[in-house]
Structure formats: C-alpha cells, structure tokens
C-alpha cells in the first residue's frame, strides 16, 4: 500500500506499520525527509543556542541539501562537553544552564532548590517536561540527552514498530513474560523503554523479570572515577557525598563480584518457572552467552515454548575472548532459530531493526549519512564505508543531527533481498575509539586510566 508521509509531522510516521514504512520509494522518501529537515532547522535554529552557534560558525543559514546538514550535525561529544567538575561538584545551576542550550524547554524556569543528587536533578527535569537519558561512552563521562514529553508518543510508536520489525511479533498483541540481565530502573537511555513502555511491551511491569531489582544510580556512574580515586587515597569519607551513596557503591561492587553466580541462579529459576511458556529473553549478549555456555556444560537446555524470542543488544563489547560461535551457543541453549537484534545510539530516538538477511535497516524517520575522513558527505549510492551520521526526525525539542563514533558499511541502494527498502548497514560496526592502535602499539606517553572497579562491575565487564 502507498502511504503518505507529511514533512510537517514526522513524529506521526512511526504510526504506520513495518511493511508500509519499508515500502516507501526512494525518491519520495528522500524528498519528504529533506523537506522535513529543512522545516525542522528553520524552526529550531534561533531557539537552540548550541545549534545557532554551530550554524553561524559553519555559515549555514538554511538547509538545501544534506551537504548543508552534515556541516551542522553535533559530534556526539557535544552532549557531554560540560566540565566534569561541575557534575562532580553537583553544581546544578551550571549543569542546568549547560543543558539549556540544547533543548527548547526554558530550563531557567526549573526550580533547582533542594537538589542533592544527579538522579534527583534528572527527576526534577522530568517533572518539568523532559525525559533525560544518560549514556556513558568509552571514557565513562556521562552524556545527557534532553528528550521531551512532547516526543513521547513518537518514541513509543517508533519503539513498538522497531520491536515488531526486529522480532516479527507485535508486542501489543503478544505481551510476553520478559527477562533482562540488567537493573530494574535507572536513567541510562538503554533502560528507558523498559520503564516508559512496560505496559505496551510486557503487559505491565510485573511481567518483566530483571536480574537485580535495584536502581542504577546516575550518581554512582558519574562519580565512580572520583570515588575510586578518593578511595585509593583513603579519603572516601572526606568527599562531600551522601554516605548512603558510598554504601550503595560498596553494595554494588559486592554484588558485581557475585554477578556470575547470581545470574546462574536467577536464570535456572526462570528456566523452571517458565518451562513450556512463550517468553522474551533479553539482555547483553555476553551475559546470555555465559548463561548458555554454563548451561550446556551441565548438559542443560532451555525448554521454553516455540515462538519464544531471544532479543539481544550490545554485541560482545564487554567480552573480549568470545568464541566465534557464541551466537550458535546462545541459539542452541535457548532453542531459538535466530537472535533478534537492533542497532541504535542514544542520541537518536529511532533504532534500526535487523532484517532476515542480517542488515540493520533505517526507517524513514531516521536519515543516515556517511561521512568521509575529512568530514565530507560521502555519495548516497552503492556501498560506502565511513563514519555514520544521522538525522533523527522524531526529535522536536532538540537538534536531531548527530555524528556518531561508529564506523559502518552502508548500502544505499534499495536492493536488500529481504524486500525492505531504505538504506541499511552491515552488522560489523566498529567504534573509532577502539580502532586507534590496538593493544600492540606501545608508547611512553599518555595517561593510564585509573582502574575503576565499580564501572567494570556494573557494566558486567569484570
């Protein structure tokens, strides 16, 4: 069926179904995308100080082509270009003033009285009308993504259409008991959907089973480096930090040490409790691999009902010596015929489902661009390898143009055998930050990153 996408209201595009969204012809798609971007820029340019500044510097007054757009995409580092010290000192007026340049909401009107923690700051902003998601990259410094409640409905529908595309199952019609190897709550962007859309995804929070019922504290993540340094000097008690937070950190480190055993016990109980039922198994690939391998070693196999889903993310990032056949091991143990994955980045609301042929496809509401070595826009044809940039058309309250830290291989022509149209990327995605040098290049200069056992534990790398 032919659908009609209006450039004025891209937030409504995810309301269409998977098949329709991936059937839009290229010429039509690209024309409506460019028009939507043009309108968005004209509306936001003078209202977002950070965007205005970049546009002025780059001499971009209007957008006539993606060549103009790529010059004014924010590097992903812009979402964390505040000095770490203001976060460590919990200087909320400065932090708020910093964030104010990145959102349409007038944050000068937020009452900052009585705030003691980063979590409480995030919650205060959420009461005001934003939805803040954090992300910690390879450096551990937190990014803050200021989404708005005005984007919530587009976010929800894009999330549901993503799930349906990635798994073939409409979660609204089939609310499955779901497992996740993470924490129950937290402000990390990757954890937001399971909290915001629990009703739509699982039929309610009660149907989501997490390894830990605790909260992943943004304060602990933000302050972990500082706390580790203070602890090394025996000065942890001298930091101006809520003692409760110090205790929480101690408990989480303790918990991290037990994590492999906890996960084993937790999973074995789920295997029994849900035997014969249709379930959705989620979590980090590395965790699922460990559980699967440990199970197979004991001669066990999961015995869930046919049609159960294994939906993973995170690749094998935190598990360096994974065997080549880790996916096979997960599939064998859980009795799944495939793993359902998607690719996303916290700067963008929409994410990309994996198709039957093993590519991640972009929905029309996310416009991918490929960037060459010198920041130039690579031709939008054939196969291109380079840095991924994208424009998020669902972003109405913040600037949706971002340059990621990922190297991807993009296929621009609508020729995927799966039948879905739209640009798509291969599954091999590399982070530029991890490609520089490797472990074999030895130099005398640099700074050893302080060993931060807390982050290792909570990120599951230990």
């Amino acid at each position, binding site marked *: 069926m032919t659908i009609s996408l209006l450039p004025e209201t891209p937030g409504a595009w995810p309301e269409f179904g998977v098949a329709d969204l991936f059937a839009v012809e290229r010429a039509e798609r690209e024309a409506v995308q460019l028009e939507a971007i043009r309108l968005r820029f004209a509306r936001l340019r003078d209202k977002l100080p950070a965007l205005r500044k970049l546009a002025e510097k780059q001499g971009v007054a209007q957008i006539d082509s993606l060549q103009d757009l790529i010059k004014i995409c924010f*590097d992903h580092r812009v979402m964390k270009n*505040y000095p770490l*010290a203001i976060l460590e000192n919990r200087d909320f007026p400065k932090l708020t003033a910093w964030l104010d340049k990145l959102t349409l909401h007038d944050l000068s009107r937020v009452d900052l009285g009585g705030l003691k923690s980063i979590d409480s700051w995030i919650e205060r902003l959420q009461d005001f009308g934003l939805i803040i998601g954090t992300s910690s990259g390879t450096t551990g410094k937190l990014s803050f993504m200021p989404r708005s409640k005005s984007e919530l409905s587009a976010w929800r529908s894009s999330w549901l259409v993503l799930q349906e595309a990635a798994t073939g199952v409409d979660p609204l019609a089939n609310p499955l008991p779901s497992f996740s190897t993470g924490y129950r709550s937290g402000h990390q962007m990757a954890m937001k959907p399971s909290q915001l859309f629990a009703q739509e995804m699982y039929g309610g929070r009660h149907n989501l089973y997490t390894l830990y019922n605790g909260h992943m504290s943004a304060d602990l993540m933000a302050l972990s480096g500082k706390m580790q340094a203070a602890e090394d000097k025996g000065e942890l008690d001298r930091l101006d930090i809520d003692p409760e937070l110090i205790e929480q950190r101690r408990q989480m480190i303790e918990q991290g040490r037990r994590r492999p055993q906890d996960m084993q016990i937790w999973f074995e109980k789920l295997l029994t409790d849900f035997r014969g039922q249709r379930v959705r198994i989620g979590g980090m690939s590395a965790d699922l691999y460990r559980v699967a391998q440990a199970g197979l070693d004991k001669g066990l196999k999961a015995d869930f009902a046919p049609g159960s889903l294994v939906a993973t993310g995170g690749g094998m990032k935190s598990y360096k010596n994974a065997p080549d056949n880790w996916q096979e091991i997960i599939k064998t143990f859980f009795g799944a015929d495939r793993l359902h994955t998607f690719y996303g980045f916290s700067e963008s609301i929409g994410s990309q489902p994996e198709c039957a042929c093993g590519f991640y496809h972009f929905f029309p509401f996310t416009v991918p661009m490929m960037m060459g070595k010198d920041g130039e826009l690579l031709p939008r044809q054939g196969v291109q390898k380079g840095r991924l940039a994208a424009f998020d058309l669902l972003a109405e309250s913040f600037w949706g143009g971002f340059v990621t830290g990922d190297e991807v291989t993009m296929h621009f022509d609508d020729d995927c055998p799966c039948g879905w149209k739209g640009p798509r990327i291969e599954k091999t995605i590399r982070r530029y930050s991890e490609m520089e040098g490797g472990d074999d290049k030895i*130099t005398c*200069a640099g*700074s050893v990153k302080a060993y931060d056992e807390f982050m290792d534990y909570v990120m599951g790398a230990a």
Partner: protein
Amino acid sequence: MGSEMGRLYEIPILSRGRVIPPTDDDCVEFSGRAGARFRCPDPHKHIHDLVLGDAGRLQDLHDLPIAKVMDFLAALGPRLKLADNPYLQESYDLALEAGGLTKPLMTRLYDSLPAMFDRARLEARIEATIGSRYLDSWVPQGTEGPASTVRIRAVGSRQLHITAGNVPIVAPQTVISGALTKSDILIKTPSNDPLTATAVVRTMIDMDPDHPVTRHFAVAYWKGGDSVMDAEVIRPSRIDKITAWGGMASMQHVQKHLKPGIDLVSANPKFSLSLVGHEALESDEAMQEAAMGVAIAAGRFNQTACASTRVVYVESGTDEESLAKLIRFGELVYEGFQSLPPHFSTPADEPNPSLEAEMRAIEMEDDFYWVKGDTVKGGVIVSRFEGRVDFAGELNNRVVNIVPLEDLTSMLGTIDDQAQTIGVYPTALRLRLRDQLAIRGAQRMLPLSSQLIDAVEGGAVPAAPHDGNETLRRMVRWMIDQGPAA
C-alpha cells in the same frame, strides 16, 4: 581508514649474530600503522634462538672488559649514519609513513644516532651509574678485615626489553644500555616501530657477527599478549630482568607470567605538565618568556613524548580581568608554537580526528573554555574555571590546556608517579615546590624559558635516572664475595 594495502616489509629475526629471514615455509604476517604490512619468521619456531637458557654462556661477555664493549659501541656509532645505512633508511621511511613525527623531526632524530654512541658519553654514563670497575672486577668494600673482606661485582643478566615505538630513539637507547650492562639482551619490538632495533643490531652483525656483544643480542617481533610466546620466554630459567614499556594492556600481559626470580622495571606511560607562577602575568617580558618556555616544553617531539607538557597550571584568578590576561598568555603560547624552528617542532602532517572533535565540541561551550588553533598548527585551550579539560590525556599535536588556579599547590593532589617532567616558571617557584612534587612521585623538573631549546637539546646528564629509576643499576645483578683478604 588505511584499507589500501601498504608495502610489505620483510623483517628477519636477529639471533646472536645470525640473520634469520622469513621464508614461505616459516613466516607470519602482521600489520602496523598506515596500512604497512610485515612478514617475519614465526617466532614460535625460534624460541631457542631468542632466549639464553644457559646463563653460563654469559661467560664470554663477563670476561670482556667494559672498555672493549665501549670500543665496540663507539665503532658502531659512525655506521649508524642515515645517509649510508640501508637498514636505517628502511626504518626511517616506515617511521615517516606511520606519521607519528614529521619529516624534519624524524630526520633530526635519526641524525642524532651516531652521537649517542660517542665513547666519551658512554664512559661518563657508565662511571656515573654502575662504575666500570664493578663491571670488570670484584671491588672490595670498606676496610679489609684480617679474616674476611666483602667484595662486590656487578654481573650481567639475561634481559627482555619490551620497547615503545612512539619515538625511534628508544631502540638505540635499549641497545646501548643493554650492552653496557654486559648482559644478554632480547628485544621484543613494538608494532609501531618494528624496524629501528632491527636496523641497529643488523649493523652490529655486519660489523662483527662473532663479537661477544653481537653474540648476546636477539631481536624479534611477536604480538603483545601472545601467551604462548610470553609463557615460553618469561621464565626464571630464561630471563632475569624485564624492562616493559607501555600501558595497562602491555603490563598485564607481562604480569601474568611474572614469577619470583624475575625482576620487572616498568616504564609505564607518563604525563607531563607545567606550572607557571603569577609573575608570568605581571609584565610583557615575563609573559613572553614563560609562554615561549611552555611552547618549547610542549612542542618538543611535537608533543608525542612522555616528557611533553600537556596541561599548564597558571597562578591566576578566574575573574574576567584575570582570564583576559590568561587568554593573552594563551595567544603567546600559540604564537610560540608557530615560531619554533622546524628541526625542533613542526605543524602536524595530519589532523588528529578524535582530539579535533573534542576541541570543536568544547569550543561551543564558551562559558567554560576559550579555544584557539587546531590539531595541525597547534592549539591552546584556556579553561575559564579551575579545572583541566576532561580529555587531558588525549592532548597531542601541540595542543595545550591552560588552567587557572588561585593557589598552585591545589594541583599537588593530582601529582603521582605518572608525572614525568614538570616545567616551572619562575625559578623561585621551582625551588618552592620541588620537594612537595618529589614526594608525590614527580620525576623531573625543568625551567621554562626561551633558552629551553638549548637546555633540552644539550642532552641529558649522563647519570640522569630515567623515570625515577636507576635503570642501569637495576638491570645488573649485584653479587657479594666474602672471604679472606687476598
């Protein structure tokens, strides 16, 4: 992206005077920077060519007077002229391709090789550290007793050197210090410089393959973290001492195999900085002088070395008037970079994408930072508050971060054993902070001035410890012989 195929370099294993080239039946390939590819013999098949399982075979070196060792090194020096030495030319070409340093700097470094082997320099170094008589004889200690006398001798060891590749002089330095300790030396080359050590030792083999010094050098590449190699080589029966350069990854590989009986000298990555007193902001002349000093301290080796200043703490307030002065100081540092002589420091051949992105990202935040320049010409970031940029560890390509501090001593808490070289202006400040810096782990202080080029070019003091370590003295074993007076 370096996906285009680079040139294929053939790298032999060098083993005690023998050159073992890779062959089609005995080879492994690996890749380095800038897409270069290398082919070397499979090190797994040559363990016994690399290690000295029988320490008794050190006898020949032990019996050789240190003067003969120095004669040998001094004769090697003149053969290390870039213009005449094809091995060095190959290593030089590769180093240029890899792009760590620009051509004028690289040329200068290679041109400095022969002088490193100057006999007078070697002699001064050995006398100021181990002492030649300790290497050649049993030296009586204290007064001779009627029944017993204590004699001490410095004895050669079997050493593994896991070297760094960011500055090519690490390789000849390793050769010199290895030979001066009358030891058996195995050099594991890094992927970012697999050729320089090979070039120096090959020249040695061409000169005299049967000389005892040559007979105790082996050079090979294997991949860092190759646990088979590490387990085979790092055994108390085969290695006594290890010098390991590099960061956490490199150190962790080694530590896995450390056992009692193996001594580790770690040359871990260092970070250097400068401290500038309020005097520098009080007159134009002082400002000029200190700024030039900072440009030199940061610009040397184009800021690729551990001794290169990256963060500059300046005694200054953070009010608008003080910040205006600080920015003026930053402008002068930037101008200083542009005025450095090309043999000493140059613009980069290519931008540093990651650092460039960090600079462009904080440039948008003018509440917190003032940014000038880029990763080609060099640059200056002035913090408008009392804190350094969060990517200070990435500062490179002649980009410094200038940080105001009301009280300079408030930065002492950040000093630890990673602080390699600390540039200071003025002299009085150096004297005031010297001991406070020392006890926290700092290793070297340097006066910031426009004369600094001459000072750093003049060469190090022969006995200067490296990274707070008396490396030479640690790489030999010290044996006691107690017995009746002769």
